[in-house]
């Protein structure tokens, strides 16, 4: 499946059609060639599966000193990464599930986020922490979490959640070059999705959200994979005569709220669809910021995210746990046309190619 071609980047629309996973891998290779201090480590980055292919070829090109697995010791390995970063290296630490970052919270929040500040500006921590969000095929309670809001809560961290192959390359390059710790969120189901990706290195930096598709009736902010699902919802809504503007914030911290406020002021309706829980989530933050800024504009708001339960593996329950293009479209329809009869798109038509093609276990 091809996501909408991003309009930003040095050569918009140019480049080859590349998969998300290959674009990511290309970013590593290019940055490692450019800068000796970049290294990629973490469980299984150097095995034959190469983290679903995202580190393919790196061991061969850069050797075991710069591409290596570790013991199962997420807490200490995070500390090692932070220490190496303080000492001038640029580590990229990889976790195959974002859930495992819960083992690293002390190092990430108590040290990485605070080091520059609490050491009076005398050090920096140019660290990238990659993790993948799992979804479907019974990933279940502990292999499915998207915990970005925990990191957005803490000053000193940056957080990014690219939704397409173009951005994942540009964001990774920007993250590696950034002198701050960056929590880099990938989504497992986005790995096979394709977009046009320029060959040369480029950065997709913090500070600019992207209006992925224009619309008049409602502003829809999608986070990570939800951008793709919101685009599908937009198509379905169009058939029902509702025009939705879809925005991809790309970087969640720092967040480009201006683009969202501007759109929401115009449409008077804001929906944030997140691949995560809503309580104290990114969606709460976006809604709160927009309304603090534009409180008098009479903007109606709504958050969509995980249901407020743990993620269950049974397919029946899993289907209800996650938002999808159908539920997003129905929610927006109810908001835009409160007096109409409730409308839900044909469930068959809400399925996304990038999901149906996924087969487990990983």
């Amino acid at each position: 499946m091809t996501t909408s071609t991003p309009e930003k980047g040095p050569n918009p629309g140019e480049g080859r059609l590349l998969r998300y996973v290959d674009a990511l891998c290309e970013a590593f290779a290019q940055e490692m060639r450019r800068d000796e201090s970049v290294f990629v480590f973490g469980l299984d980055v150097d095995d034959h599966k190469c983290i679903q292919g995202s580190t393919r070829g790196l061991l061969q090109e850069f050797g075991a000193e710069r591409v290596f697995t570790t013991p199962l010791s997420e807490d200490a390995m995070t500390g090692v990464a932070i220490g190496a970063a303080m000492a001038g290296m640029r580590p990229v630490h990889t976790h195959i599930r974002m859930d495992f970052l819960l083992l690293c919270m002390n190092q990430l929040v108590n040290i990485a986020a605070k080091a520059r500040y609490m050491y009076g500006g005398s050090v920096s921590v140019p660290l990238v922490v990659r993790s993948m969000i799992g979804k479907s095929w019974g990933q279940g309670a502990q292999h499915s979490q998207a915990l970005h809001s925990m990191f957005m809560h803490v000053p000193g961290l940056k957080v990014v959640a690219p939704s397409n192959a173009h951005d994942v390359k540009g964001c990774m390059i920007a993250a590696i070059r950034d002198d701050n710790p960056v929590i880099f969120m990938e989504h497992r189901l986005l790995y096979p999705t394709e977009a046009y990706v320029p060959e040369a290195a480029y950065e997709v930096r913090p500070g600019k959200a992207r209006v992925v598709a224009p619309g008049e009736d409602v502003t829809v902010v999608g986070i990570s994979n939800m951008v793709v699902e919101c685009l599908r919802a937009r198509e379905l809504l169009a058939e029902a005569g509702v025009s939705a503007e879809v925005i991809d914030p790309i970087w969640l911290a720092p967040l480009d709220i201006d683009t969202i406020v501007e759109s929401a002021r115009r449409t008077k309706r804001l929906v944030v669809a997140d691949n995560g829980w809503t309580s104290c989530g990114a969606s709460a933050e976006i809604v709160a910021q927009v309304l603090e800024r534009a409180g008098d504009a009479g903007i109606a708001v709504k958050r969509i995210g995980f249901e407020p339960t743990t993620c269950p593996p049974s397919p029946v329950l899993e289907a209800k746990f996650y938002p999808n293009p159908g539920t997003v479209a129905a929610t927006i329809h109810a908001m835009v046309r409160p007096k109409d009869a409730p409308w839900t798109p044909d469930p068959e038509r809400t399925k996304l190619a990038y999901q149906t093609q996924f087969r487990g276990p990983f």
Partner: protein
Amino acid sequence: MQNAVAAGTPSLETVTRLYHQLRLIRVLEEEVARVYPTDKIKSPVHLSIGQEFVSVGVCDVLQPRDHVSITYRGHAAYIAKGGDMAAMVAEMYGRKAGCAQGRGGSMHLVDSKAGVIGGSAVVGTSIPIAAGFALADRRKGTGGVVACFFGDGASEEGCLAETLNFAALQKLPVLFVCENNGYAIHEPRAKRWATDRLCERAATYGMPAHHVTSGDVFEVRARAEEAVRAMRGGGGPVFLEVDCYRWQEHVGPNQDYDQGYRSQAELIPWIEDDQVPRLARMLDASVVERIDAEVRLAVAAAFAFAEETPFPDPEDLYDHVYA
């Protein structure tokens, strides 16, 4: 590898019991592997084929009041401790009658009645949980012990060191069992362990520690028996490291010797020494035949149950978030 039977000659009764358990787990997992490609099991499965003897040897000396703490590779220990097999298969099928009502999947098996503490998919996490059960056992005076299974990879997590110290300090009745199959996913031990001196390290906490390298179910059983006896007498925790080998791929139903990260040559001695046929050879053919038939029936019944029993209702999603 040799069968250094450290335990004298096992009684025929013991051989029969152990054979039954070994065969049951083997057939069950082979059936999981057979069904898997049909996509009826939409859950990552981690098979224990070849490693069953560790769970079987240890659990044979446990009583109903005792607990086992299992991992995401937990089918063997779940069954060996007497977990409900039909509920387990139904769980993998995502059914309401699953042991976790379709909310756990293969990685989070649980059977509180049988003393199976729920598994975790975050490696190492269940080790201190096991110590918590042991603490409760002691406080409540149940006389129960806890067998805590984990892999060689899990031993690298700091929480093992923390738990060993605490369990030894508090003299908790925990039998730590490291199933050392030499790999964490595709990474061999040499890329993860500075040395192989795990048992020696555990012993520095002041607990008995034994390394079973024979692959012999009777040696495992004998070590566990001795440990559990000492623990019930208030002797505090014991550590067992048991060498074993994972025959199948890390996750999923297949073999993966074509992938290059390990060679089939590693497997061969383990197949030669496979405890399932070994114990079969120690029994009358008729006994083996009876057990095999029983086992086939039981496994078939479990799968038939799973096939038929309904999925949860979507609205069930909201149950059990809070007690």
